[in-house]
């Protein structure tokens, strides 16, 4: 078996290109932009070419790199993820030029997004948790400058959260990897099943895997580790948010899949835990999104929620065991659909920001009227994300939903477990409804309502984006309905390619996406969504301001956030204080002893005279006849003598006792 050098080229080319673009950018901005486009187009072409090499040489091993070596492997899933990453990078970079016009430090920014792309390729093509971890870390650090780019106070705060969670997660993961390596003896993904089957101490394996999951869960915004995501994604520049939401979160999902579908292949207990965490993320994200009045924050919360759907699908794979075809396909497809949707939506948000310099829903009211391209992109995003039939999100959500329904149907009688799964199913439908509700909130505000203050000024903005941006927007908007209406030629194909990675099979009979029962599920969600929008959002979340105009009110109490209530106070105040107190106490023990000894040795009776020239030494002053015979220093000597006697007694006692 030789090596497929295309893989390693794909991984390391972006690093080289990043340095190249930095150097070119020092001299000429336009040349740098052109260079970037070419480099990313080349990367995308390279990723597509991987398909041509599958079946001949489909792995790359670099022995000894960073001790355990790098292992890469190709299969449908790896290649699809790699193409997705390159595609989204190319699209977002094409719009970046307009977004960053006149901004400071873009050279550095572009260098780091290329580094991040290289690291992403490393994660997605890896055949080894060790390799994945190395690139995962590189990615975490390389994407940090993307988050902090704006350098506003919020950006710095958000990036602190981002980095804090990333470092914490990765170190916990590292502990998990240490343990996995020591239990399983290997971290190679295609050997994990075999190695896990020989494990006797299952409890330890659960602990190790759960620890490993923390780092990946952080990136995937899994509850309760999701709090950084809405903050970081909403403060990053819009093109960076698109990358973060669409691709970088998927690195976390990738890790969850590796652990769940290999070490715990068809393990229902593990699956249940994953489903529960997925459900919590799904619901939390959706609720936060409904309350948010900042469109980018809404999209970011929506990412938490949508990734929750994906995590549920991964859990269902484990629960369903051999018959998990629907869950497997749902996982893959929802990952991709979410990426494409978030790409379109965040770029749309970026276009708005370039014109308005705000993401506040109240200020953006009516901005989108008479702007057809923007209307189209947001409309497609709305319909796709909400899972409306004929749009892409519908297909994947239906698959995941069906897998839950199928499992409930398989259970013979009413048990607590069945009740739990029914709750999950109900919450699933409910969250689908919330998705529609929060998207409607944004859509209605921007495209239907009129701005109470300056609608005429907003309507006058005819050229609100460049030709290039418009082209990119149209492409990313048009993809969504195409893959939604033609699932059998597009989405099924993707699922067939990628399912092998999760050890899934094609379903016994092709799924009839547009059958009555599936449409009914979607209809339920849509109905819930419309009810929530009209009866909750328009009633409870809109308040009249002093001018009597209804505005979107900030109802969510600012203190109600896990991060501000628990994580930050505990991790940044309480724990450091307690530990530092303990540490300092232990630490000064030595110095205190020394100080005590010095006090003993240099004990100064009244007669000792310390010359000012040398404070360390004391001499006896000119002899003064003591008036009293018994004075303080004699008492002190007696005391010391007593201590000595006690010590000797103790010693004798111990000697005699033993």
């Amino acid at each position, binding site marked *: 078996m030789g090596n497929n050098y295309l893989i390693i080229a794909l991984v390391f080319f972006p690093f080289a290109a990043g340095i190249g673009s930095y150097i070119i950018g020092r001299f000429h901005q336009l040349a740098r932009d052109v260079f970037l486009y070419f480099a990313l187009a080349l990367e995308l072409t390279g990723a597509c070419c991987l398909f041509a090499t599958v079946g001949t040489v489909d792995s790359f091993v670099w022995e*000894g*790199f*960073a*001790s*355990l070596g790098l292992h890469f492997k190709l299969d449908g899933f790896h290649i699809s993820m790699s193409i997705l990453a390159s595609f989204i990078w190319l699209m977002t970079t094409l719009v970046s030029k307009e977004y960053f016009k006149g901004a*400071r430090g873009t050279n550095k920014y572009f260098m780091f997004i290329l580094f991040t792309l290289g690291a992403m390729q490393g994660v997605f093509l890896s055949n080894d948790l060790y390799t994945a*971890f*190395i690139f995962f*870390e*590189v990615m975490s*650090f390389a994407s940090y*400058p993307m988050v*902090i780019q*704006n*350098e*506003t*106070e919020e950006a*710095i705060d958000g*990036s*602190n959260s981002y*980095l804090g969670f990333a*470092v*914490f997660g990765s*170190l*916990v993961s*590292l*502990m998990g990897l*240490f*343990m996995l*390596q*020591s239990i399983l003896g290997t971290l190679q993904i295609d050997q994990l099943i075999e190695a896990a089957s020989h494990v006797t101490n299952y409890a330890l394996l659960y602990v190790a895997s759960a620890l490993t999951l923390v780092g990946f869960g952080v990136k995937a915004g899994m509850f309760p580790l999701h709090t950084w995501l809405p903050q970081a994604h909403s403060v990053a520049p819009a093109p960076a948010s698109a990358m973060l939401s669409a691709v970088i979160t998927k690195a976390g999902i990738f890790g969850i899949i590796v652990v769940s579908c290999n070490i715990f292949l068809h393990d229902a207990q593990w699956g249940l835990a994953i489903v529960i965490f997925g459900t919590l993320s799904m619901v939390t994200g959706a609720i936060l999104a409904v309350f948010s009045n900042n469109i980018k924050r809404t999209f970011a919360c929506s990412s938490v929620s949508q990734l929750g759907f994906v995590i549920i699908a991964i859990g269902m794979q484990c629960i369903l065991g051999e018959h998990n075809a629907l869950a497997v396909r749902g996982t893959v497809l929802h990952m991709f659909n979410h990426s494409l949707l978030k790409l379109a939506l965040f770029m749309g948000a970026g276009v708005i920001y370039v014109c308005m310099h705000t993401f506040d829903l109240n200020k953006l009211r009516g901005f989108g009227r008479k702007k057809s391209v923007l209307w189209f992109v947001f409309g497609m995003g709305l319909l796709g994300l909400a899972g409306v039939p004929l749009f892409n999100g519908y297909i994947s959500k239906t698959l995941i939903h069906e897998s839950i329904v199928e499992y409930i149907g398989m259970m013979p009688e009413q048990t607590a477990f069945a009740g739990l799964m029914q709750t999950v199913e109900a919450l699933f439908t409910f969250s689908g409804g919330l998705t529609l509700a929060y998207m409607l909130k944004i859509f209605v505000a921007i495209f239907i309502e009129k701005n109470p203050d300056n609608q005429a000024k907003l309507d006058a903005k005819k050229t609100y984006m460049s030709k290039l941006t418009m082209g990119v927007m149209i492409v990313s908007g048009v993809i969504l309905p195409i893959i939604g209406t033609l699932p059998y030629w597009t989405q099924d194909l993707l699922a067939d390619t990628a399912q092998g990675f999760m050890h899934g099979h094609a379903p016994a009979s092709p799924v009839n996406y547009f059958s009555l029962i599936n449409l009914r599920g979607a209809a339920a969600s849509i109905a819930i969504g419309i009810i929530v929008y009209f009866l909750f959002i328009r009633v409870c979340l809109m308040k009249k301001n002093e001018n009597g105009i209804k505005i979107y009110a900030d109802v969510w109490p600012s203190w109600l956030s896990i991060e501000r209530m628990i994580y930050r106070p505990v991790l940044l105040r309480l724990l*450091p204080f307690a*530990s*530092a107190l*303990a*540490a*300092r106490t*232990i*630490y*000064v*023990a*030595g*110095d205190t002893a*020394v100080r005590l000894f010095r006090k003993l040795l240099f004990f100064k009776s009244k007669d000792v005279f310390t010359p000012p020239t040398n404070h360390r030494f004391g001499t006896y002053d000119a002899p003064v006849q003591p008036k009293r015979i018994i004075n303080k220093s004699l008492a002190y000597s007696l005391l010391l003598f007593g201590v000595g006697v006690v010590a000797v007694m103790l010693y004798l006692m111990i000697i005699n006792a033993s």
Partner: protein
Amino acid sequence: MGDGIFLLIPILFPMIAGLVILAIGHRIARQIYVGTVLVLNTITVFLISFLTEVSSFTLWKFSGSLSVMFRFDGTGKLFACLISTIWTVACIYAFEYMKHEGKEKRYFAFAVMSLGVLMGLSMAGNLMTLYMFYEFMTLITVPLVIHSQGRDALKAGLKYLGYSVLGAGLTLIGFFFLNFYGTGTAFSEGGVLDLAKIAGNENALLAIFLVMMIGFGCKAGLMPLQAWLPTAHPVAPAPASAVLSGIITKAGILGMIRVTFYVFNPDFLRGTWAQLTIVILALATVFVGSMLAYKEQLLKKRLAYSTVSQVSYVIFGIMILSPQGLSGALLQVIFHAISKNALFLSVGAIIYKTGHIYVKDLKGIGKKMPIVMWCFTIASLSLIGIPPTGGFVAKWDLALGALSPDYGGVLGYIGPAVLLVSALLTAGYLLPIIRDAFYPGKDFDYETLEKTEANAYMTAPLILLCIAVAGLGMFPMGLQQVISGITGAVM
């Protein structure tokens, strides 16, 4: 006698050459001379290391078991190569830095002579020689600590001297006992214990072991004798702090390795209370050091606390008493030496150019001194243990050594967990500096910004160290081969 008379070259050459420095008044001439001496010495050490097998040489025999004897084995070679390289790099950096400290002649004379002593320490072949060079080292590095001659420096120097002499004294106690219980005091793989004499006195010997380890631990910043380190390192000039933190602490480690693997025997120590005690002390030090560094605002002192913590990783690795643990320990020795030097040297460059010594003053420093701060960043990432830098490779071996079934037990899990908590704290005390340096915030004043990048004498050593820490992290194969030779010989 042995045939290794050439071993005296790297010991005596710097010592004599160092004395000559006192006679050279012209700055440029002195710099050329020092540079040549150090480079020549490094080349010699590397040549001897790679071209010769284990060679030994007895210089002088007092009586029976007392002799000054050199033996250059795998461990010694590793330390000698590391020390001489880093020393050269730090001294080249000092050419520029010491201009602002003054008294350059004295500094370089003692720095070069110290290198000779350290070479002697690496090559020491028995306990007596080790002890002798250990004390020499303490004495000859005191002038580096008190270089500025301020009141703080003098006090710190006295503290350094006091603790070091106490530590060395503790090791001397062990030496007396081992002279009796051993078959000799010359180092050999597998130890020199005379099992017949020991029978019945195992606990006494373990106590001796503990005392010796604590004695050597003084230099390595192991609790309870760590207090001198954060006092003495920050007051020295930056290049001296760098080698004190990066190299001199490792002399204590060398002593510990010699005692554990070449005098005692890992099999004798495995599973005993002495092993347990030192592991607990090491883990406590790891945590306490990191925690105090996290709270410290004076940057050089923060790095000194960090040294306390990081060097105890090594002690933990040694006391795992398994090949993988020792391999992790030796890798940590190397990567900590490189990255801590890089950190101290970058801080030195900042002090040299801007005079800032507190963490809070470093906002936007990355815009003024990008190269220096990039080096600081890479070294920090290695210190935290972020792949693919060297620190990660070391940590991987340390943790897997601890988790392996030979070591086992609850401490096998607590150990790596403490290392990771410490890594989290390390991230907590280094990353904010980097963030503020490169991202000073929206309202940072870019108008008055002027580039104050250090010159090549300072940046070149930094870049070299950073390339080493990242390069060796990515391609550690050669290093691991050397280290597996060492671990294979002793276990």
